[in-house]
């Protein structure tokens, strides 16, 4: 007998990039994830995802609400996008109840209350991200803040990234299926799984030697460390330098671009192409910092 794990995917103030990134999963493929037993004896039963599901309108809202009642306490809730709240909560609505639009804050609240666990997929869901950038016109909040404000205590895992690498999502889900929800020591203070977000980009960057030597690119296409072109690798926790993106094809710094810091709570609160200022470089660069070379 195959165990079915119900999953619902709720889109908030999102761009769907997180879902498209998930489609890029190389191993397992997205077909393996949707159709096959993702780990032996377990199938992810994706009951609601508006971007790919066959039905539309009332029938899919019923599928969503039925999951909430019939699978109460047993389904995983994945959220992409931040959640518009307060007087602007109606800036994001989906589906109707008794002829009235239901906003995502309300849908999220009831789905969260009845979920087994919640995955905040992408930096908007995890930290607010793009819609929450100043002046935050929709008063968008990250999942964690909405849960706190409503007093909902449910296991939450943040899987940030703009978008997240598909392995980060798939790996987190597979880990839950194989050995249960993560222990507190397996997550960082930002509730990110340390297995993917445990090290700075800067620690594993192939251009690191340039940084230590003080050799900096002055314009795009130059050899050297991209620090002076605005690289956020020194403050960004993710395994991009070793994992690489799109089936291992390339990654941001591999294309000659500074890291944009997209897995961080700070994303987008800085100029992307301006050098980091007044940042202590944690863990790394001890030699460079003490000698002040290259500054």
């Amino acid at each position, binding site marked *: 007998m195959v165990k079915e794990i119900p999953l619902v995917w709720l889109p908030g103030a999102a761009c769907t990039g997180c879902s498209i990134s998930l489609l890029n999963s190389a191993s397992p493929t997205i077909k393996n994830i949707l159709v096959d037993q993702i780990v032996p004896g377990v199938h992810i039963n994706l009951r609601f995802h508006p971007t790919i599901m066959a039905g539309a309108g009332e029938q899919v809202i019923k599928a969503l609400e039925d999951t909430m009642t019939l699978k109460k306490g047993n389904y995983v809730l994945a959220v992409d996008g931040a959640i518009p709240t307060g007087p*602007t909560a109606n*800036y994001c609505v989906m589906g109707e109840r008794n002829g009235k639009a239901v906003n995502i804050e309300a849908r999220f609240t009831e789905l969260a209350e009845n979920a087994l666990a919640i995955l905040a997929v992408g930096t908007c869901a995890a930290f607010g991200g793009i819609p929450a950038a100043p002046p935050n016109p929709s008063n968008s909040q990250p999942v964690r803040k909405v849960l706190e404000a409503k007093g909902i205590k449910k296991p939450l895992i943040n899987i940030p990234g703009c978008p997240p690498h598909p392995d980060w999502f798939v790996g987190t889900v597979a880990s839950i299926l194989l050995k249960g929800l993560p222990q507190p020591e397996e997550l960082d203070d930002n509730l990110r799984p340390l297995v993917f977000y445990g090290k700075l980009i800067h620690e594993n960057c192939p251009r690191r030697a340039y940084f230590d030597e003080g050799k900096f690119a002055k314009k795009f296409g130059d050899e050297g460390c991209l620090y002076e072109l605005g690289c956020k690798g020194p403050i960004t926790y993710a395994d991009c330098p070793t994992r690489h993106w799109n089936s291992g094809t390339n990654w941001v710094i591999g*294309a000659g671009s500074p890291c944009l810091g997209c897995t961080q709570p700070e994303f987008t609160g800085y100029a992307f192409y301006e050098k980091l200022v007044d940042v202590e470089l944690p863990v790394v660069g001890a030699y460079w910092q003490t000698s002040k070379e290259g500054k």
Partner: protein
Amino acid sequence: MSKIVIDPVTRIEGHLKIETVVENGVVKDARSTGNLFRGIELILRGRDPRDAQVITQRICGVCPQSHGVAAALALDSAFGVADKIPDNGRIMRNLIQGAHVAQDHVLHFYHLAALDYVDVTDVAKYAGKDSELNSVKDFIARGELGPFVPRYEGDYRLPPEVNQQAVAHYLKALEIRRIGHETVAIFGGKIPHSVGIVPGGVTDTPTVDKITAYLWKVKRLQDFIDNVYIPDVLAVANAYRDYCEIGAGCRNLLSYGAYDLEGGNPDLTRRKRLFKQGTVSADLKPAPLDMTKVSEGVKHSWYADSSTGRHPSQGETRPEFGKAGAYSWVKAPRYDGKVYEVGPLGRVAVTYAFGDPVMKKLVDSALAELKAPASALFSVMGRHLARAVSAKVIADSLERWVLELKPGEPTYVEYTIPEESQGMGLTDAARGALGHWIEIKGKKIANYQAVVPTTWNASPQDDNGQPGPIEQALIGTKVKDKDNPFELMRIVRAFDPCLACAIH
């Protein structure tokens, strides 16, 4: 008289509601409502202008690449380097955008649209040895059919063996579009939300290994487009022939053109491009593009009336949710005061109408195969067919362009950010004509406006009460079963709407 409310419209990007009034089985009135406002134009204000290509890609994770291009073109222009982008930079931008758009067309047909025509459950009857199909058969046998049911029932017309083959192609297309994204990443770093395209050119430099890798990934895209995608579109069009007439819509088409074939010309409306800039209507007579004719109305959108009717360069975004008479977050862009549709059909038809020989041959042979007149282009199937043709023309061009790259030569030109300036960036994204307008003051973004393909297509009524393109395509449609309104969803999805884009 009865109402059909479809909320959410699925298998599109984003939050869309479609509401129709049906009388004697025919749609009398249709309203398209965009249901998510983030205010990205407001978020851009006060930022470093170079951030625009990063932030505007995040307007949409399905079509970020084209926003990156539009923003970079607007910034090139604002920074005074629109005529100075090195050929390598121009070509690499085309390679990044083109691979993305070609895979996006594959994604649309198979993973967004196909379930309107293909009955997945026929795989339960599959008796062959294909391991992929047999795994789907096992999946069906287990009985938990999400996300493939629930669905509308009652109008699947393909025979079982064709449905089975189509499901196999659905699965193959997942792999092909993933390879399409890998192709983007070669010069774009990663995707969604790539990094390669910046004002002044691109960040990367071409090397022989990357060129070769790109070439052979594109060849896999081409093989699939030629031998699977285009034949499947023709097969579906033949099985659902009535959809070669259903959903004609406004019959005015607009293209900004895309894929620069020359540097040096700062005028984006006249620059030589693979897809031509211009407009056509039902007579398929082309007219040149005149950007002074574009304006955005907001009378029926949730924005302050004081901002209505402006050219995007003077546009404003002042949310006013709940405004009387308004019913959508999408604004209503119009060209010369008239309703225009944009999309693959727009750029294919405009390029065809200007007599481009490659486009003539492709479109004419597809129409001949369907034994359909050119007027059939204005229909649900016409839009699918144009999308497949767009994918082919792009993929075939990418194969040539990648070999024009010159390792060792520059890809990027330096600039200084001016104290005050403005710029306009125009391209044709996967879903059609995309424009970005920037105003810079004190070296910061003072105003930013984006008029996006689905802003055109999913727009509500304009200030003169003219319904938007999707609304017009729905009005007059016969609905056989109001509990299973296949017709409405097939029409809407043929436009490939993207609401995160439309509203932003």
